[in-house]
Structure formats: C-alpha cells, structure tokens
C-alpha cells in the first residue's frame, strides 16, 4: 500500500508511536512489570532524493536513483528500524518462579530508509 500514499511530510519515513498494553493481550496475570511499553514502528515513504533526515543507507540512495530510471522494476527503499532498544520484563513463569529477564530489540528508537 506504499504506492497509494500521497507524498506529504507526514508520510515521510519516520518512527510512529505504538504502545503495547499487556492487559490488552491478556498477559496481565503473569507479567508483573511493565504494564506496557512503547514498542513503536517505522512507516512512510523513502522518496528520491533521500534527504539527510531520512537517514538513508548508501544502498538506499542508489536504489532511489535506480527507481527514478526504472520505477516498474525497482521499488523505492523501505522504511525500517535502524536503532532498537531492549526492555526488561518482570514476570511469573509456569512454575510460579519470579523472573527478571532482559529482551533485546523490543522497541524502535530510530527509523531510516
């Protein structure tokens, strides 16, 4: 559905807020903390030319160039996480033990093309 987005500043590739509420997915009786957290996600256009703000990789810059020559064959680059953050979760496991565990790459900090 990327192709259908009209090009406006709000559609440019950037981080979008997404709050995961553990109660909403029925995890509240085994997850002690946090009650939820900002996982966020990346969404939006990576148009030619890629400005500095879009934090494009070198390859992404080449791909936008190729897209401008052959839009039918080469799609625009994707909007993806380029920096992620871990979270720690405090929960009960199936044996009623109390566990504090660190999980990597659970939240998006920054997006780029």
């Amino acid at each position, binding site marked *: 559905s990327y192709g259908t987005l009209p090009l406006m500043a709000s559609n440019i590739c950037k981080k979008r807020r997404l709050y995961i509420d553990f109660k909403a997915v029925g995890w509240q*009786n*085994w997850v002690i903390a946090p009650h939820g957290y900002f996982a966020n996600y990346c969404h939006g256009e990576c148009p030619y030319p890629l400005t500095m703000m879009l934090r494009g990789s070198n390859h992404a810059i080449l791909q936008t160039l190729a897209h401008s020559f052959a839009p039918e064959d080469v799609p625009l680059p994707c909007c993806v996480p380029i920096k992620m953050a871990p979270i720690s979760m405090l929960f009960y496991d199936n044996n009623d033990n109390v566990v504090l565990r660190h999980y990597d790459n659970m939240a998006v900090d920054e997006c780029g093309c």
Partner: protein
Amino acid sequence: FRHREDYVLIKLGHPDRPNPVSPPPVPPVLWKIYNQRMGSKAPKKNQDLCYVEEFNVPGSIIRVFPDQGEFAPWSPEHPSNLCLQKIIFFNLSIMEKEEVVTMGRLELRFNQNAYYGLTFELRLYMTRMLSLKEIHNQKSSRKLLAAQTFRLLHKSLYFDLTNVCETWRNHRKNLGLLLEIFSRDEGTLDECWRIQTFLSTSLITVTLNPLQCKKPRTKR
C-alpha cells in the same frame, strides 16, 4: 490471535502462556534491579543488560525459586539439640538448555529475631545420588556444603550454590539439600523447635543465554 501469541511467546522464551497458580510476592532485590533498568530514573543509553551489576556477574535472566521442600518430622533418633531438619528443593527444570548458570545463591531468612543473642549451629548438605559402587564403599549420600554457627539477628544468611545449581541442571542429580539447625545453648530446646515457624528459604539464580547475549566485539 492465539496462534500468533504462541509465536511471540516462544520468541520470548515461553513454551506457552504462563499461568501462575499461587504467585509469591516479588522479592525486593528483583524490584530494585528492575527499577534500575526500567524505572523513570534509569539511564536510557548503553545499559549492558547482559550483566547484573547487583551481583557483579554476567547474566540476562534472574530467577527466584521458592523452596518446594518440607520439614523432616521429629524422630526419637534425632540428636537432642536438633532444632530443625529441613529438606530444601528447588525445581530448576524451567531453565532452557542453552542457559549457563553464572550465580546461584541460597537465602535463609528468619522473619523474627525472638531468639536475640542465642547461638545456633547450622549444617547444610547436598543430597547426592550414589552409584552401586559408592553405596558398596559406604560413601555418604550427603555432601557437606557449609557448617557454621550463627546468631539469630534480623538478617539473612546467604550460601553460594553456583556449582550446585550447575550440577542440578541434570535433573536426575537434583535431589535437593538437607538443612540442620542445632541449638547450642542449654535449656532452649523446647523453645527452638518453634524456629521452623519463621524460617523461609529461597534460591536466586542468574543465567546467561549466549544466544541472546552476544559477546561485545573487541574494539579495533
């Protein structure tokens, strides 16, 4: 949704959605470590969550196990100054096979210090499975881990069980511990039998999942 949830839970290291039956209170030390990492005052950058500063060991999973053992019934064969004899058992089967134990610590906590000033003697044994040969050589099925005197003051006693926990990863070898507490002061025996009422035991372990915690690349 359940199908997708199972996928997420497996990625988070849960074979299925945990369903605690009688969840115990969260130990203060876990709250402390959690708030250091996730609290409002926690530093947002460059936290090494594969290292537990509180215990100064590498690790990404900290667990507190409740004791599933029981007190041994009184027997006339017991020494006259025995206050209590308790089987201590922790079920470590929840640990994933990739995990490496980097710390195991037993905590004995006496919730009352009604015996202020009295001295007790404690012996902690690991119960071992003996091979036929060892039985034949009359090897003891108990290995002494710690023997000490202590005074009942308002604090906990800690014992390093890191190596014992690594042995227990092999579930067939996990036969638990035996705790014996003796009174050392004459004339207090009938009193000290009540020590059982306010003794609580728990095990805290720190493990490292090498699949999750990659060694930091050496700087060029």
